[in-house]
């Protein structure tokens, strides 16, 4: 578990790196951890023993004619203070709810105006992110490998607990229609659905935790490169890193997910095509739909919005518009 006062940047003065992981032996898939259930059950038990005591404060600047916006402060694992942006549409509830799974980023902003009009929304500030950066301020890069040598010391044990805790606060809010809760964002949403049954729909716009160790071995792009940096400095930790990340890999919890799931797919990308996704998709218990990305940002946005809106029974809110022909520009 994370202790207070961890350094924000802990990698200084590490030994000089040699070699490139991409050409070294990749981190092997670790398989389903033997103690996976015990790991997650312990998180649930610790959370259950610690009240969230949410404190909702109206945010006048962000509140508008369509929705009231709040900041919520609450207590998570290790008595860590976390926060969230939370909004409730004006009018008679209860309303469908849309949760954004935490992304790997420092800044968390309120849900989009179009989402706030239609859903109860929550965007959560997990430990280390701005708004939840006392006592631990995450470093980017650095956060992804903080304590990665063991699942019990890995900072994302706490981050995942924060996600579960924030979700509980949303789920228990009287404005929320508990039959119509959806999760969007990364595949952390699958972990949430696995641990908190009753979520109707999960949309995975991109995977992050699924086969992360393998994905890192095939790229030099950040944030995956953080893992490669770490392994260059700590080559003896290669197996340990693979084991730690397996505890957070949604493929090993997919059998618990009964929500409808939509996963974005890209047959041209080796880490998003059918072969890559098979290990995840094959285990999910609910309906599974694919979305084939076009890479046209607004086309993709509108298609994803249409799916989650349909799942939760609200009108879609496309952001594309039709303009007169002014091309070709490419």
């Amino acid at each position, binding site marked *: 578990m994370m202790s207070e006062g961890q350094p924000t940047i802990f990698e200084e003065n590490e030994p000089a790196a040699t*070699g490139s992981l991409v050409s070294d032996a990749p981190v092997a898939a670790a398989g389903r951890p033997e103690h996976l259930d015990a790991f997650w059950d312990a998180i649930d038990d610790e959370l259950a023993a610690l009240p969230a005591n949410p404190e909702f404060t109206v945010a006048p600047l962000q509140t*508008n004619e369509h929705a009231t916006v709040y900041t919520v402060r609450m207590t998570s694992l290790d008595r860590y203070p976390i926060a969230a942006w939370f909004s409730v549409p004006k009018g008679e509830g209860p309303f469908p709810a849309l949760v954004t799974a935490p992304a790997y980023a420092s800044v968390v902003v309120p849900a989009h105006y179009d989402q706030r009009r239609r859903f109860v929304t929550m965007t959560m500030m997990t430990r280390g992110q701005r708004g939840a950066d006392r006592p631990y301020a995450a470093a980017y*890069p650095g956060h992804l490998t903080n304590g990665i040598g063991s699942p019990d010391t890995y900072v994302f044990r706490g981050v995942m607990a924060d996600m579960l805790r924030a979700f509980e606060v949303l789920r228990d809010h009287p404005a929320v229609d508990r039959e119509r809760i959806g999760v969007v964002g990364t595949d952390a949403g699958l972990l949430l659905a696995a641990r908190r049954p009753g979520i109707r729909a999960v949309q995975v716009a991109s995977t992050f935790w699924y086969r992360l160790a393998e994905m890192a071995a095939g790229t030099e792009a950040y944030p995956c490169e953080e893992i490669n940096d770490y392994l260059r*400095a700590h080559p003896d930790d290669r197996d340990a890193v693979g084991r730690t990340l397996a505890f957070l890999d949604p493929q090993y919890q997919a059998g618990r997910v009964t929500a409808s799931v939509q996963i974005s797919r890209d047959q041209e990308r080796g880490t998003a095509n059918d072969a890559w996704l098979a290990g995840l998709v094959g285990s999910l218990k609910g309906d599974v739909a694919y979305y084939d990305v076009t890479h046209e*940002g*607004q*086309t993709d946005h509108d298609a994803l919005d249409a799916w989650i809106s349909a799942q939760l029974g609200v009108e879609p809110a496309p952001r594309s518009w*039709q303009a007169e022909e002014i091309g070709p520009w490419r």
Partner: protein
Amino acid sequence: MTTRGRADQYQCSVTRPPDVDQFWEQVQAELDGIPLDPEMTPVPMRSTDEVEVFEIHYTSLDNVRIAGWYCRPRESYIAGPYPGLSIVPGYVSEPTLPKSWAKMGYAAIGVAPRGKLRSNSQFNPGYPGLLINRIIDRNTYSYRGFYADALRAIDFLVGLDEVDSSRVGVHGSSQGGALTIVSAALRPDIVTCGAAGAPYLTVFMDSAELTHSYPYEEMNEYFRLYPERKEQARRELAYFDCLNLAAWVKAPMLIYAGLCDDVCPPETAFALKEALPGEVTFHAYERCGHDAGNYWEMRNVEAFLAKHLQPANADLHAQMTVG
């Protein structure tokens, strides 16, 4: 689907303050009085056989200490001198390490202007918040210092022995696109070329009226609460509008945009293209949003920068730029 008029025919409402030149000359005069005080600390853990990584710091306006990452090819991999490249960040993203650019042969800096992590101990308006922080006063508006921080990154680069100061480029998307324009406008005799995606901070007031997406939505929220401040903000923002700085740009520029960008309306990219006096390459992508077509455009960015800056390994590829 809703309809909208042609982006290239939009008439924006920006006016140019008659004293905008003096305003920025004054900022420069203040900067001239503040030593850069550059620092470079090696970061061995993130360095490779090809690329050395450093954490850097320098001093900027109001004596705010600014952080960044600096990546350069190892001499054993590519011998110097190297073209310099400033990679400027988006609004909410933290600057990433420009290792992939260094592997291509650039001496590349990833700057963290004030308010970003590691540069926020003296100034931290929060997110959301940066865009509207002191929006009614050009002398204390957040972007006065923020722009200066980007300029000082250029100064940092050209002060390095290994950088060929006749080859210095700037690149970024969204806020990074705006800072690309700002850098080229306010360092016109240094910046050799710039590639700006989905340029933000351009035609501020019209943009806010055209969207409900952050960051411009911060302005809508602010003026909803304080409508009486709107006209004053309009006057002050004109000093920071990329449209009003564009006339000073001498370098060839690449501008790209999504024709359905709900974050930085494409109308403003077209207006910027028209305002730039020099050579402009302009690419717009149908059905693309704030991604600005980067799935296709990234290769154009690499080629454009390589044409003007001549890195040693132009056949390699950079990490995708996000705004």
